[in-house]
C-alpha cells in the first residue's frame, strides 16, 4: 500500500524549475514557501523562535504606524490596523504562556 501524502497548500510539487540567475535583472523563480514550523531541536530554541516572531510583529506594527504618520499615501488603513491587532494578539499569547509556565513552575516548587 503506497503511503499517500496529504499535500498542504504551501507545498509545491512537479515542474518548478530552479532558474540560475546570472544577471541581477533575471528573476529568480523560487517559490518562497511559508516556513511551516519544522521540528525544533530543543524547547529553548522553540521559545526563542516564537519570541523572535512576536518581536518581528511588534516591529512591523511600529513601522506601519510610522508610515501612516509620515507618508499616508503608501499604506492602507486596514494594513495598519491588522498589523496592530496581530502585534497585540501575539503579545497576549506570549504573556498567557509565560503566566502558565510560571504557575506550573511554582506548583512544582511547592511540591517539594
Amino acid at each position, binding site marked *: 500500500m503506497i503511503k499517500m501524502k496529504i499535500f498542504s*497548500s504551501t507545498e509545491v510539487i512537479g515542474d518548478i524549475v530552479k532558474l540560475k540567475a546570472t544577471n541581477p535583472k533575471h528573476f529568480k523563480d523560487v517559490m518562497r514557501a511559508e516556513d511551516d514550523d519544522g521540528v525544533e531541536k530543543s524547547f529553548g530554541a522553540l521559545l526563542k523562535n516564537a519570541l523572535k516572531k512576536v518581536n518581528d510583529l511588534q516591529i512591523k506594527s511600529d513601522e506601519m504606524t510610522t508610515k501612516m504618520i509620515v507618508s499616508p499615501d503608501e499604506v492602507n488603513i486596514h494594513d495598519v490596523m491588522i498589523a496592530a491587532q496581530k502585534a497585540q494578539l501575539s503579545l497576549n499569547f506570549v504573556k498567557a504562556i509565560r503566566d502558565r509556565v510560571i504557575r506550573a513552575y511554582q506548583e512544582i516548587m511547592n511540591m517539594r
Partner: protein
Amino acid sequence: MFLASRMMKTDYLLERAMDVAVIRHQVIADNIANADTPGFKRSRVTFESQLKRALESEEEMKKCPRAYLTNKKHIQFCKPLDYRKVHPKIDVDFDTNYRNDKNNVDIEKEISDAVINTLRYRALSRRLSQNFKMLETVMQ
C-alpha cells in the same frame, strides 16, 4: 503566518480581499471624477474570479492521481495554481461607447458598484475582526 491552518488561510484571503476592495474603490472614484472628460474610458478591477479559479484548482488536486516521478525531468499530472500569487488586474474598458465624445462612464453603474464595494469591505472587516476576537477568547 501559518498558512497551512484553515483559519489563517481565511485570514489571509480576507486581507487580500480588503486590499483589492480599496483598489476597486479608488478606480471607481477615478471613473466618477472623469465622468465628463471627453474620450475617457472607464477602468475596472478583476480579482475574485481569478482567486476562485486558483482555489478550485486546489480542490481538483485531490481528485487527480499522483504521478510517480522517477526522473527529475518528469512533470506532475496536475499542478495547482497558487492562490497567493493571484493579483488584482486593472482593465480599461475600450469596447463600449456611451456618449458622443467617446466617454463610456455610466454614473449609475459606478455608484451601484461603489455601494456594493463599500458593503463588502465592511463585511470583510467585520469578519476579520471576529476572527481576531476568537483568538483572544482562546487565551482567557
